[in-house]
């Protein structure tokens, strides 16, 4: 499945192998596969106990599907996948991953960066940090919105 939104943890290695195998099974020739994984980190300057991720069921899947379709067309990708978790995650857990496949690496890298830039500012996810000092919603960064302008 190209787009998945789930609370369960996932194995990034298994996901990447499945992505690669699905391309091979469908006879898709891709000389380059690029992947990116986001990991829960301590953004606040407290001790992060957990990150809680909220999302907008329905709109999330639609937004990710739209972003993926744009990346596929723009970079002539042979394949692209997005997995994003929601719910409560401990520090160091994998939040999400994207993978792209293309005939050549430049498009695979660019496609993955495009997916990440759009996903950060256009897919309806919100992060809340739970630290020893309390809870706080993570603010969007101006740099995230600015990152879209390069595309």
């Amino acid at each position: 499945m190209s787009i998945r939104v789930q609370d369960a943890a996932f194995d990034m290695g298994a996901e990447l192998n499945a992505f690669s195998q699905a391309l091979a099974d469908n006879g898709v020739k891709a000389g380059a596969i690029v992947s990116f994984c986001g990991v829960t980190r301590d953004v606040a300057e407290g001790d992060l106990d957990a990150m809680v991720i909220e999302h907008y069921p329905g709109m999330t899947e639609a937004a990710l599907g739209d972003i993926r379709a744009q990346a596929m067309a723009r970079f002539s990708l042979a394949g692209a996948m997005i997995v994003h978790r929601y719910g409560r995650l401990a520090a160091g857990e994998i939040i999400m991953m994207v993978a792209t496949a293309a005939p050549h690496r430049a498009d695979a890298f660019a496609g993955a960066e495009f997916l990440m830039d759009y996903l950060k500012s256009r897919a309806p996810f919100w992060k809340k940090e739970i630290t020893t000092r309390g809870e706080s919603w993570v603010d969007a960064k101006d740099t995230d919105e600015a990152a879209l302008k390069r595309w």
Partner: protein
Amino acid sequence: MELRYFAWLRERVGTGHEVVETEAATVSALVEELRARSEAHAFALSDLTSVRVAVDQQLVDFDASISEAREVAFFPPMTGG
């Protein structure tokens, strides 16, 4: 019309979902009605520079029409990834 609130907007309004009767033609007009609904709504919707809106699950601007809308959602700028 179904209203949805997410993240700190949900916390400030005090609910993630409510149904309202409205004749508002645009999101902006709906926001004015909601601000008058309760202090919690007024607080949540006090600074629209940090509020984003989706009509039927599509991101739109505050001047967007809602005359055909089934669901309007308010939430902060997104922080996925």
